[in-house]
């Protein structure tokens, strides 16, 4: 009599398909996603049906729930020029390192007086730092100067980009290189806060503004 052999099953599972899938997803997310920029303020924007994607070159003013005002300008060169102009205007000196930090930073919201100290902080502390926002009242309207010089700096760097694009033999549109003015307001903020900032823009004859909104499907 022969012994009945029970086939031995290996207790290990073939993990190859799972690994394949996992790496596929990793690759997909790596390629498809853009990393979220760390922002010093949390802002919940209202939604709209607009499908216009946020432009590349922007001067962004953020207004949070409490009405604090923050600023961001895209472009490293433009930011360098901006801080140098502001430093001359307000007689606040910045060293090389501070200018460098400012150029690679994103949104900020502090007074000119606070700014050198703010720039000296390590990035972690900067996140925790409680700022009062950029002053924009009539007696001390720093926001107006930030926007004014920000616009000039962005226009200058836009011009160089335009010339470069022209040299490369493309047919660029000068309007694509002009900065767009974007307002990012918290839905819960009182409109009066936004109105103050809008009035600053209008005083500088910048009447074409954009509001950041999250997407919403249009009704039929």
């Amino acid at each position, binding site marked *: 009599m022969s012994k009945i052999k029970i086939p031995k099953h290996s207790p290990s599972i073939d993990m190859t398909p799972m690994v394949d899938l996992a790496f596929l997803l*990793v690759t997909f997310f790596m390629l498809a996603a853009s990393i979220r920029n760390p922002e010093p303020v949390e802002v919940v924007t209202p939604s709209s049906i607009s499908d216009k994607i946020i432009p590349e070159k922007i001067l962004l003013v953020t*207004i949070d729930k409490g009405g604090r005002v923050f600023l961001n300008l895209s472009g490293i060169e433009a930011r360098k020029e901006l801080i140098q102009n502001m430093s001359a205007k307000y007689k606040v000196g910045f060293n090389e390192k501070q200018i460098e930090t400012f150029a690679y930073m994103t949104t900020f919201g502090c007074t000119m007086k606070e700014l050198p100290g703010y720039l000296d902080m390590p990035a972690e502390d900067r996140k925790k730092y409680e700022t009062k926002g950029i002053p924009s009242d009539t007696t001390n309207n720093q926001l107006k100067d930030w926007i004014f010089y920000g616009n000039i700096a962005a226009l200058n760097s836009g011009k160089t980009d335009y010339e470069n694009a022209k040299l490369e033999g493309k047919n660029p549109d000068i309007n694509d290189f002009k900065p767009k003015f974007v307002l990012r307001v918290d839905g819960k903020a009182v409109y*009066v806060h936004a109105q103050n900032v809008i009035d600053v823009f209008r005083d500088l004859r910048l009447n074409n503004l954009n509001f*950041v909104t999250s997407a919403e499907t249009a009704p039929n």
Partner: protein
Amino acid sequence: MAEIAEGGGGNEKGGKKRAKKSSTRVDMTPMVDLAFLLLTFFVMTSTFNKPKVMSLVYPAKIEDEPNPPKQPQINNAVTFLLTEDKIYYYEGQYFSAGNPQGKPATVLSETNFGPNGVRKYLAERNAYVIKNVEQLDSKLTREQKKLMAEGEKDTIYERKVIEFKKHKDALKVLVKTDDKATCKNFIDLIDELKIAQIGVIAPVDLLASELELIKAKQ
């Protein structure tokens, strides 16, 4: 973990020496761990839909211009007065009580953000533009629609739409806000105006007498 070492241990019977069979399989567990760790990281940090923007052109400040133009006679206009989560509106010009022209004083009507509120009202009032734009849309060929979806600007189409929006039968809107209105209220209203294809939107300052009317309503 998933792999269990086989044939190990010390059951060597009878002194017979066997070559150790080493498994050809590689333990993939650490690799899988890593893969999923990366996966979680990318899922958490990534943002997919880039934020959208809604553009709005504000009227230039009047003191900017050397000779301020005369207040144009606005025909077919409606003024929205926004306060906390509520919309009031009146049509045409504002008349205070006991005005010299002898017109009846302006009375505010109330509406809301619901689909049967402001959206229905605007669709009725701006029917001229909505109808004409729909007609234009229906004339577009499939190729044109495809091109426009890809970002190509059909200037003739756009020019016609703007022409309709500026026509005297099109509704013009003034938006005024009081000190209690939130940004969400404002953007929601502008959004409704854009849905209703309104081309002329002017956010302007609230008059003191209008604020009185709002207060009287509450």
